[in-house]
């Protein structure tokens, strides 16, 4: 059974789907789940499963180890790519499991789980769509 960094981020783990909020009034979608709509302030949005595929909207590479509370991998820090992925209704920030040389705005990607920290837990990430 997969242990994730925060079960509240997901509607399901196999296959992984991210849980977002959709405002009942204006339809604004946000991630992670929140208690009210940041656009129109209405409380009590619906929880929805976000799309599990999209395109890279922007990206960078983290070349230096962040300070705590970041937990580096057991084998030590190595650079990792992050970005925002356009899932249609919302842009979601996450790790990009793509070689930096292949990263570009518009690259099609899909949602996966990836181990983080000491390897005992996973978080969401995006990899290039085959």
């Amino acid at each position: 059974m997969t242990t994730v960094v925060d079960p509240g981020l997901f509607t399901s783990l196999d296959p992984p789907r991210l849980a977002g909020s959709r405002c009942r009034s204006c339809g604004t979608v946000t991630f992670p789940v929140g208690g009210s709509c940041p656009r129109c302030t209405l409380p009590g949005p619906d929880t929805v499963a976000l799309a599990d595929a999209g395109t890279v909207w922007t990206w960078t590479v983290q070349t230096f180890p962040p300070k705590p509370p970041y937990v580096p991998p057991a084998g030590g820090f190595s650079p990792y790519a992050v970005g925002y992925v356009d899932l249609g209704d919302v842009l979601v920030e996450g790790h990009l499991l793509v070689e930096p040389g292949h990263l570009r705005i518009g690259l099609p990607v899909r949602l996966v789980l990836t181990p983080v920290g000491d390897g005992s837990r996973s978080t969401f990430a995006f990899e290039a769509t085959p």
Partner: protein
Amino acid sequence: MTVAIVGVGMTRFGRHDELSGLDLAEQAVREALADAGTAWSDVDLAVGGSNVSGKPDALVSRLGLTGLAFPTVRNGCATGGVALATAADAIRAGRARTAVVVGFDKHERGAFASDPASYGLGAWYGETGLMVTTQYFAMKTRRYLHEHGLSEESLARVSARAFRNGAAHPRAWRRSPLSVEQVLAAAPVNPPLTQYMLCQPSQGAVALVVTGEERAADLAERPVRLAAVSVRTRRYGSFEVFSPSLDPVPRRSPSIDAADSAFRTAGLSPSEVDVAQVQDTDSGSELIHLAETGLCAHGEQEKLLADGQTDAEGALPVNTDGGCLANGEPIGASGLRQVHEVVRQLQGRALGRQVPGAPRVGFTHVYGAPGTSSCAVLTLEGARS
């Protein structure tokens, strides 16, 4: 009532291993009081801000226990602007006659660390390595270059100009000029941003003496009018630091709102600005803020920089003291450093590169996490009609 800045003081920015944050703040306040030719005993309001380096109101035990009011503010990088706005409001309301505004910080080496809980985010966001300010700057910059057809060379031009200006400024931290080629060839910290396109946490303090109009002429030969100071937080649809998600088309910005408010209040337009300081925590941020504040059009930055128009001698002098890139960022002091520089430019007594031609209208812009901006319009009394 018109509010004017009649005295300025600033420590050197950089590393001060032997001095505490309060030591630096005291030094800046004493210099500002001397600049205005007044004394702490004459001050009836102080407003202070420091992000991490002590309680600003503890300065009373060094400067004198006169019983004055001393509110403190803490709004990230926008701290200085908020402190100035607070003092100006008190003067306009008649609650103070002579105010001191002080901002300071003394940060440790290395990138800032941030606590997810204090931003209302889950622990996962920090643990998994997403809570890094420089990542945000890089991602926002990459998207901006993409949308507006700007080159990475324009990022390097921002840095090269900042270090050129810093080299000429005796209080700046980074005082060695770097070429565009050197900036581009430096280590990629968060691509497209290289080592020299990102400012570093640093140490320093700035203080201002602020009065109403009737006292201004007594205290300064050339008082600088605070024509407007506006503070705004983000609205939905902006692209902010520490955002696990964004609107699909994030077009808003608190900088757009704060600048618009400041120019409207001042009754001036961005095209009338003779000298500007805009937040340059990184080269990309400066490019973005130049357009968001209305100082240029989106996409126009490439040519402005290539043509040298943002240099002190250009049509739109920007960050004439080297900005955050050459001074580093003591969070509580940065916004007031900008005001310090503009006041001196308008008075014709810049410590570094002086904008020629007697500038009359100045502008400052700061932007802080998690989406706060403060903008000020400053004018020389007797400004052109």
